């Protein structure tokens, strides 16, 4: 039976309940038996698990990224790309496998604790505070920091100059591409060691997409590892140091981005020939 506290009987009474979704994060329970099969700066090692008590979505899936590199997860719809990334970030119940950051086992940490450890996450949707100004969005990104954040903010503005002009505007009023810049900027404000992006180019125009990819490369050059899920597999693999092709929650192909682009099987199945 479902949790009686979560049974609202279909009530949608706007005069007494706020329809805005409340947070869905729970502490990841951890798997209790760490595995160690490979090494990388950030690695989701042999992960098996699913949402809550539901069926497994990931099956012995491994995703890793090295310092200053860009790793991209691609694959067909429903392959578990976003799920794999969420598993690394602790939003999934893993039954097997481990997640390690810089050698430290973080499998049982909550997403918030992972942020504190130096992981930045940009969700695919609802990734900005729409009612707050651009500058406030960035400030909130740096909420955990007690030191002077003006330098980091200046770096973000250098990276995304348009945000500096719009810094007093509500983020919700910006265009799709600008919103994504705010979202990435917010995540950078924590000065993360790893930046995780869930389909950062979803719904933006091709020009904006190229622009965003350029910025992402720039970020990687500063030494931040990037792990990203992408629909636009070809363009993403072109900038990737490492590519993971997932199929039904399993690693189908893993190689450098270039090698995958040239792999005839991958081309045929996933890149449209």
């Amino acid at each position: 039976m479902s949790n009686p506290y979560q049974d609202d009987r279909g009530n949608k009474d706007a005069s007494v309940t706020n329809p805005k979704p409340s947070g869905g994060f729970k502490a990841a329970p951890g798997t209790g038996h760490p595995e160690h099969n490979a090494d990388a700066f950030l690695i989701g090692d042999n992960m098996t698990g699913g949402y809550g008590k539901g069926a497994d979505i990931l099956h012995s899936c491994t995703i890793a990224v090295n310092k200053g590199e860009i790793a991209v997860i691609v694959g067909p719809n429903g392959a578990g790309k976003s799920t794999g990334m969420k598993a690394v970030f602790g939003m999934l119940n893993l039954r097997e496998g481990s997640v390690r950051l810089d050698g430290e086992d973080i499998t049982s940490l909550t997403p918030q604790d992972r942020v504190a450890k130096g992981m930045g996450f940009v969700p695919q949707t609802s990734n900005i505070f729409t009612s707050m100004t651009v500058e406030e969005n960035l400030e909130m990104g740096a909420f955990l920091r007690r030191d002077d954040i003006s330098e980091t903010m200046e770096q973000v503005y250098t990276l995304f100059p348009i945000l500096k002009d719009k810094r007093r505007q509500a983020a919700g009023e910006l265009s799709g591409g600008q919103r994504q810049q705010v979202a990435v900027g917010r995540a950078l404000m924590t000065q993360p060691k790893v930046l995780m992006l869930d389909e950062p180019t979803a719904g933006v125009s091709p020009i904006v997409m190229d622009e965003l990819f350029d910025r992402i490369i720039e970020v990687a050059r500063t030494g931040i590892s990037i792990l990203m899920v992408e629909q636009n597999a070809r363009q993403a693999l072109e900038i990737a140091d490492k590519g993971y092709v997932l199929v039904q929650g399993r690693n189908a192909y893993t190689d450098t981005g270039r090698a995958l682009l040239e792999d005839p099987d991958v081309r045929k199945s996933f890149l449209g020939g």
Partner: protein
Amino acid sequence: MDLLNALVALLNFVIVPATAYGAQLALGALGVTLIYGILRFSNFAHGDTMAFGTMVTILFTWWFQSMGISFGPLPTALLALPFGILGCMALVLVTDRMVYRFYREQKAKPVILVIVSMGVMFVMNGLVRFIIGPDDQRFGDGERFIISARDFKAMTGLREGLAIKTSQGLTVVVAVIAVALLFWFLNRTRTGKSMRAYSDNEDLALLSGINPERVVMYTWLIVAALATVAGTLYGLDKSFKPFVYFQLLLPIFAAAIVGGLGNPLGAIAGGFVIAFSEVTITYAWKKIARYLLPDHLDPDGLVQLLSTDYKFAVSFVILLIVLLFRPTGLFKGKSV
């Protein structure tokens, strides 16, 4: 001269009382809207939270009075107010710890919290009646008037007097200070911004490292302060009776919804909209009509659109009209 007299009568019977009442409703509605924005449910216990805070203030007022402490021309209750706020803060924090927190951990749906708040309402209501009793309590002292009707007449030579009660002046001043502080807090401080962020997008706030329990705690503290201030001002202006405070829930909810639930600016606007419509529609306009109309057109009746007992009906109709034309309230209901 007649025009001036009519204007003074309008000020005296409509504008001054409605402004004071509107400020009280606005402070109440701000509390409801903050809870709605951050804890995501409408708190049925808000009226009783106001009653509790006011009760503590009254008890301290009586204690001060018995020791001979007074605040000169201002009501002693103003000195007791900080203690009332502290008492109310303690109550809501204990309630949150003992009741609401469990449901947050369970990720309970907001409507379950609404029902829980009904239980809290019963308990607080019982508690207040148990401690201070169900009867009317008056606790105002100091100067009763800033300007009394007699002084005003003597000063201006008009037939109509304008009386401004100390409690009314105080209400407006205190409300302005409280609202200014609140907005400064929400827009300028790190904690206040984190509350707005949490209300806007809970998941993203967590990803930014904002601690939800701290946000919730600050929210309750602010709500307790607002509720106590609103309750004490209302009590000074009228009188304190637990049941009346419970019934204030309807105009307060109406104000918060008219303004757009979750929007503090809307709550303030909603409070004044509701207060002004209640007072204008239930006021007997005979006096003013007599000044303005030629003698032979003098009305026989009271020229009262609705009897005072229908003031709830007024808030309700305003609410319906606003919702029909602007489903999210006057100010779009969004984040805190």
